[in-house]
């Protein structure tokens, strides 16, 4: 199929970017969206133009590196990651607008590549259980109800891709944060640090310049791992608890 691509090009963080239009032909249904961009890049290189920069690594939907705004939808029209989006979701002659995640907390590095270091810093602010290597008790000493373990797992599948932020009209990272709060909060191991964790992470979230959540719900619809909105409820609940406990 033949497509018209409108892609955001920006040489670096300091220079203002703009949309550029490219025509691409011979795109097959089986290509992933990123393979389609690979083909475009080969074309560009042949013409002596700078190829389009975009992030990807695993290309199987698990590392969270990829992520593009495709026709106004984070990761495009399917509930999956950009690397797992295939061109059969598009039709011959389509025009596709490709933009980077937009959030001031995710500054553009180049073209479609953004800096998501803010997520690491949110985790640094409390998204862990403090246990030094070697000091762990025998694994079976603390049984975990199966349902809790399943719930914890379900939200622990967050890949840190940032689509939730990209899709949220407020540029909030609450879904990402809520997923971690819920993952660790569901488990007995996570209880001792529950208050300090939520307080630290939320403070860092705010300091990074993400917006506050007003429960709009675009995030969960864009999330390739279908993290449900109740993690934000849990996040709020935990923060209130911390407030009550005097944090």
């Amino acid at each position, binding site marked *: 199929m033949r497509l018209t691509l409108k892609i955001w090009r920006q040489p670096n963080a300091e220079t203002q970017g703009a949309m550029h239009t490219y025509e691409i032909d011979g795109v097959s249904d089986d290509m992933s969206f990123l393979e389609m961009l690979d083909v475009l890049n080969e074309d560009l290189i042949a013409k002596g133009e700078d190829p389009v920069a975009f992030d990807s690594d695993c290309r199987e939907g698990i590392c969270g590196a990829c992520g593009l705004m495709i026709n106004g939808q984070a990761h495009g029209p399917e509930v999956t990651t950009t690397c797992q989006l295939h061109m059969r979701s598009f039709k011959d002659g389509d025009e596709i607008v490709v933009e980077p995640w937009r959030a001031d907390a995710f500054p553009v590095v180049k073209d479609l590549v953004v800096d998501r270091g803010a997520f690491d810093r949110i985790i640094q602010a409390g998204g862990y259980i403090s246990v030094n290597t070697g000091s762990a008790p025998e694994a079976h000493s603390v049984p975990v109800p199966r349902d809790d373990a399943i719930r914890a797992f379900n939200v622990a599948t967050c890949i840190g891709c940032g689509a939730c932020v990209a899709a949220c009209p407020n540029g909030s990272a609450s879904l990402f944060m809520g997923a971690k709060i819920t993952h660790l909060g569901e488990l007995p191991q996570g209880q001792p640090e529950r208050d300090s964790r939520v307080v630290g992470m939320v403070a860092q*979230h705010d300091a990074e310049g993400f*917006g506050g959540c007003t429960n*709009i719900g675009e995030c969960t619809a864009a999330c390739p791992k279908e993290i449900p909105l109740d993690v934000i409820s849990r996040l709020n609940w935990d923060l209130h608890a911390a407030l009550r406990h005097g944090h």
Partner: protein
Amino acid sequence: MTGARASRSTITLKLLMAVSGIAFILFVLAHMYGNLKAFSGHDAYNEYAAHLRTLGEPLLPASGFLWILRAGLIIALVVHVYAAAALWRRAKRARTQRYVVKKNLASSFSSRWMRWGGVAILLFLVWHLLNFSIGKVNVSGGATNDPYNLLVDTFDTWWMTIIYLLAMLALGMHLHHGTWSASQTLGLTNTVRARRNAKALGWILAVVIAGGFSLVPIFVLAGVITK
């Protein structure tokens, strides 16, 4: 993170917003119910208005209850509007470079209209208070000292009714998302079922309150409620 204060977070802002919002909801529910007294006729309505002013006497001075209510509402309003403005500003700063194309998939229209809807309600409130409470403006030029007559005069004017109905639309939308949102903010929606219930409650409150309020203006204009 040392020095991180839970109370200074965006979530705390939202918590304040939810609490003040819920206070509003309770107020408008009661207010809406009171308004329906208009269907019982001139005397019953005016008696109710007067009763509001004597409520709590002799424990409270004259109009004491009303003033407590007003103080509460003013605080709630300040908090609610302050928090709304702070969150709005943050959201604006969180994305200064906008998308060329952005689709909304899951969000309701109400949710995306909370802020402008809120502004509409605020404007309405200013007018409303001038109209009925502080200013007592009778657009048809009639007397302003008889609450029932003021009401009927007001809504006999078609454009006043339109303004009120539009405001009720804004209120309905605000409540539709606001109720669900407040439940989520309070951390009460941890299950799919709880979320569904909160959303349903949003619809119910929106329809009951905005609908209930709308009855009086409509029936006045339609000539059912008359002086």
